[in-house]
């Protein structure tokens, strides 16, 4: 009975394998398409936006969506469609930069901790402590110290995200160091750097890439939250969080002012999470089987 079903599974897997990669991993494909669109929106904002996103027009306040103003206008008469396009820039920049920086710094610190016991003991205590401070509060505190700017928002979120990457990277290094192939490499006289670049890092890439997608998603949400509560990018910059903060006072009469940027943010984050889950299944079959 058990053997038969195992055979069936194999047959299915075989049929699935023959499909092209983009059909085998539909969630990765869908996630990439949506993200591609969002990035295109962000890059092409100056050409797609018909009206200057900061141009005020007191005569045309709180207009509902129309052919002239696709997403309507806000209470200062600014074009919401243009602002949403420019807002995508802030989110995309935040997501990508934070993911790259947090993963890079986290990997470096994680490697240090994974290879040296003394550093490990000290660093992991520090990381445990940092993780005990809720990430948003830590970012809020850092933002309260500095000026509102996109750069500072990115630094604040990176500081809050790094401990989780360090944990992950350190865990990977510790597991890999016990692996038989690493033992074999050491026994056959591979030096430290050979071990690091040929055996440890290639095996750490997959989980870190998956983790970095989740970091990008969480960074975009954190940026929007910070901007929403007035501790994020300056209010002169159109960002999805800022737009929602400005729209909330008139939510009962013009809910679209909050909902358009809010839904854009949700769809973007959903696409990243789909990409992340898909990549996890694709890159880490062991975990995927457990999670399926």
């Amino acid at each position, binding site marked *: 009975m058990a053997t038969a079903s195992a055979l069936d599974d194999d047959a299915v897997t075989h049929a699935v394998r023959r499909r092209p990669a983009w059909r085998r991993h539909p969630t990765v494909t869908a996630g990439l398409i949506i993200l591609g669109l969002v990035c295109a929106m962000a890059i092409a904002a100056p050409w797609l936006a018909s009206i200057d996103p900061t141009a005020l027009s007191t005569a045309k306040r709180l207009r509902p969506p129309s052919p002239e103003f696709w997403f309507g206008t806000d209470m200062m008469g600014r074009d919401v469609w243009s602002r949403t396009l420019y807002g995508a820039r802030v989110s995309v920049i935040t997501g990508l930069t934070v993911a790259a920086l947090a993963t890079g710094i986290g990997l470096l610190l994680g490697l240090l901790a994974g290879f040296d016991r003394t550093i490990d003991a000290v660093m992991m205590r520090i990381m445990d402590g940092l993780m005990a401070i809720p990430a948003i509060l830590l970012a809020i505190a850092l933002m309260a110290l500095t000026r509102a700017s996109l750069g500072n928002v990115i630094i604040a979120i990176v500081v809050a995200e790094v401990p989780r990457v360090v944990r992950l990277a350190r865990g990977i290094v510790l597991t890999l160091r016990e692996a038989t192939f690493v033992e074999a490499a050491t026994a056959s006289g591979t030096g430290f750097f050979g071990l690091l670049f040929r055996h440890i890092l290639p095996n750490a890439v997959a989980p870190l890439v998956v983790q970095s997608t989740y970091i990008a998603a969480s960074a975009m949400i954190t940026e929007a939250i910070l901007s929403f509560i007035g501790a994020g990018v300056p209010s002169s910059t159109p960002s999805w969080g800022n737009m929602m903060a400005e729209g909330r006072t008139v939510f009962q009469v013009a809910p679209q002012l909050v909902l358009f940027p809010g839904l854009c943010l949700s769809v973007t984050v959903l696409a990243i999470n789909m990409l992340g889950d898909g990549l996890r299944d694709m890159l880490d079959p062991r975990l995927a089987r*457990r999670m*399926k």
Partner: protein
Amino acid sequence: MLGYVLRRLVATIPVVIVVAVVVFLLARLAGDPASVIAGENATAEQIAQIRNRLGLDQPLLVQFARWSWSIAHGDLGVSIFTNTPVAQLIVQRIGPTFSLAVVTIVLAILLGIPSGVLAAVFVRRVPDRVIMMLAVAGFSIPIFVLAYLLILGFAISWPILPVQGYTPLARGVLPWLGNLILPGLALALVYAALIARTTRAALLDVLAEDYIRTARAKGLLPREVVWLHALKAASVPIATVIGIGIALLVGGAVVIETVFAIPGLGRLTVDAIARRDFPVIQGVILLFSGIYVLINLLIDLSYTWLDPRVRFT
């Protein structure tokens, strides 16, 4: 077992120290408290006098020791803006936040655990797929977006619940709950998604164990096997994720209280940001980090009761 409890207690000490050091350094980076207190027109001498009175001319290590000493005695400093002790401000605002947290945790557990169990029982079938899709959506829709969708749905289009505000429990359970249902739900959905995913994964592991086959073989009803035997054995990761989720809850409360105009600690924090009132922000961070550490310590200790194997390690 005593060894395990002691080890966990000792392991908490460095965490608390690091949190204290980080918050202390943040407070020092926030600028010279003496010049803030002295006001804009103060002379250098007046500032120096205040520095001396506050002990700010002492070495950093001495300052840290003094600061920790007063924190340990419940003195969280004085708000720059209102000139009231931060501890007093926190006590005034803790009620609404605590209520919100209780409603959220109850909703999250009621939604998360049964969904996770359902997904595990129907693994790879329709209920599982639907629940897991909802869980991914729950992770992706930021809580404040969800909050506005809920307001639009249940307070504006179909006005059965208040748009915003807070009623203390003393004025009746129903009005209290009426104000907290929407914010609680908005906060609980992400949390429930996290719990559902963990419950499903943990339960799938347990259901593959030999003793589950034994339980089935001796004729126990499937629901007895799942809800009594398997869920109990899967409770350690579930309890862990509920503890980790507290951090999520705290971050979310700051936003949700702003959306729903709930006069709690989150609202206090947001107002403090606008006023650059750093002592208040510092006090809230210390409080929430302390609660987070304490809850996670209690959960770790509960393993001894949830999982007998822990008692012997």
